[in-house]
């Protein structure tokens, strides 16, 4: 069965998702319920420890929820992780690539894990490299890359199998404005084919890119809506960053 065929309407849902880590005093996720439609760029915002990475880790099949459910294109992620994994792409915060391999070798390895092979795989490698502006560096090893190039290669690895849902965990951390601009442009262009769940600490990025944002704190949703709607609701804030500080406070989070 073609799993992609299942994706109609709501691409990703979470139902009263709770995640309590062993020994933790409070839940990292508390009754998180989301519904993300096809082609949405869904911003998951919050200070450190708000539960963003935990939410992504549960949604992308890495962590088992304590209770509640997650579906990707209608597939229960906890019950059928293997089926769900084929539809999911993940761009971690770390540069999760083999530094001693070239971009082509990294993408080839990841592509094969998703069952791609032959000419189809080579075509996807070329497309992904072109998409992130690394077509001229395909045979260059990752360790020789600048920070921005590594981030772009990291993104390409998450796209190799044309996922239905792409999880991006702070994909623009520590890179130059040019690379950030390119990544944001390309992600915006991708939304027709792929639903994205995006976490970032750069509020301006979220404001520009996301069609819908959820602001979390202490594992719970404290505000949600389209960025312009959220700002309309609180006229004292002129941008998302001001709103974010207003909602989560100025106290430092470590």
């Amino acid at each position: 069965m073609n799993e992609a065929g299942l994706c109609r309407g709501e691409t990703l849902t979470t139902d009263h998702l709770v995640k309590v880590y062993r020994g933790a005093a409070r839940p990292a996720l508390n009754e998180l319920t989301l519904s993300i439609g096809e082609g949405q760029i869904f911003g998951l915002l919050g200070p450190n420890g708000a539960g963003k990475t935990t939410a992504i880790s549960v949604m992308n099949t890495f962590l088992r929820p304590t209770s509640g459910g997650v579906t990707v294109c209608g597939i229960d992620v906890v019950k059928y992780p293997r089926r769900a994994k084929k539809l999911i792409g993940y761009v971690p915060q770390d540069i999760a690539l083999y530094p001693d391999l070239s971009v082509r070798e990294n993408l080839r390895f990841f592509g094969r894990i998703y069952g791609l092979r032959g000419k189809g795989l080579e075509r996807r490698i070329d497309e992904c490299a072109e998409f992130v502006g690394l077509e001229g560096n395909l045979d260059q090893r990752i360790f020789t890359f600048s920070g921005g190039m590594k981030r772009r290669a990291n993104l390409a690895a998450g796209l190799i199998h044309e996922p239905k849902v792409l999880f991006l965990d702070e994909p623009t951390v520590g890179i130059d404005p040019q690379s950030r601009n390119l990544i944001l442009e390309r992600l915006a262009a991708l939304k027709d084919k792929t639903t994205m769940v995006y976490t970032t600490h750069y509020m301006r990025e979220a404001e520009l890119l996301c069609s819908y944002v959820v602001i979390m704190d202490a594992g719970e949703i404290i505000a949600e809506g389209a960025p312009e709607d959220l700002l309309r609701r609180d006229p004292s804030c002129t941008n998302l960053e001001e709103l974010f500080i207003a909602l989560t406070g100025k106290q430092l989070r470590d």
Partner: protein
Amino acid sequence: MLKLWSCVRKELLLLCRDRVGLLVIFLMPVVLVIVVTLVQENVLRSMGETKTQVLFLDRDSGAVGRQMEDIIRKSDAVTLVKEIAGKQIDVEMAKLAVAKGDFQCAVVIPEGTTKAFMKKAREAVENSLPASPAKGRVRKERLREPAPRFLIYFDPALSETLRLGLASLFEKVIMGIEMKEKMRVFSEVFPVYLEAAAKNAMGPLWSEENRKMVPDARIEWDNAPIMVVEEKAAQYGAPVLRPNTVQQNVPAWTLFGMFFIVVPLSGSLIRERQTGMLTRLFVMPLSYLTMISGKIISYVIICVVQFALIMAVGRFALPIFGAPVLNVGSAPAALILITVSAGLAASGYGILLGTVARTYEQASMFGAVSVVICAALGGIMVPVYVMPKIMQSVSVFSPLSWGLRAFQEVFVRGGTVRSVLPDTALMLLFFVTTTLIAWFYMSQRGRTRIQ
């Protein structure tokens, strides 16, 4: 299958790109095999395990020296050297060469030895016969000649065992020559003695006619030995080879090199964990079993290549340096079984270490030290049989000792697949146990992960 093959290819590619890893995996065991074998070859020479080089300086040029040379040359234990760098040796040169350790000992036969030796032999025979009436009280009146001496200069660093062995060899050679000479003299003297005794007994009745009545007492000694010592190695199956430094060191350091894969293998697991790669892989449709199997298969392939490389060194490179040629036995299937089992055992240990250790530094330090300890216990550096009893009983727990025992079984005792099965089974059990512990540890740590 495609996923597993992809993991294997990726691991091999990463290993090929890791220069330090390649040095640890391939160059280190090769260098160790060559260096340790050649060093031990020299040590064993001083312990008498290999042919001992003896300087032979015959200043007498008589029958004694010739006979001694003939007999010593026939010995398997000693090589006689009569010249140094094409030059005739004198006593001072010989002493200097031995003192420097270039030779284990020097034998010097002083001028006049043969003459004095023969004289002494005659004296000994004549003194052994009862006093002849014809000759009067010859035995008591004859002055004892001082015994001729031949000198042996030993290397002061020579082991006591070898020194005693060499001294005993020379004494045995002299005893043989002495006995032969005494018999020759006896054969010559005894008929004369007998005739004199008869003449004395008959007194005036003695005539030349009576001489014919005296029995012919000339003796033709049969030189064939009356008892032969036959040395045989206790064995079963194919003929046993005499173990030497090559037969000991090549398999020993091959195993050491194989087990050193724990450092790059555990390192690769830790790096994947630290860089977030493991998280990315867990989110992909790839099972932990496939991921780990890819690593195990890759490193077993590396172990097989290591084995082939070091065997080639043993067969072709070491003889260039004067070491004996490695004999690999006649059971290639058994060798493959041992190599794969040892590779699996080492991989299992590497997986366990990479799973339990928190940092690369922890894994590399603990991995390297634990392999060295297991190697020492397993008889890699010093054969198990020379260890104290308590260490011998501990050594049975070292996977390297199982591997080495299995290799020696094939290399030295002519073992087959069947005879190496117990040791390979132990290595496979070690692999299964370490991998299961790693699996258990991983599943406990990732208990909240969706698998």
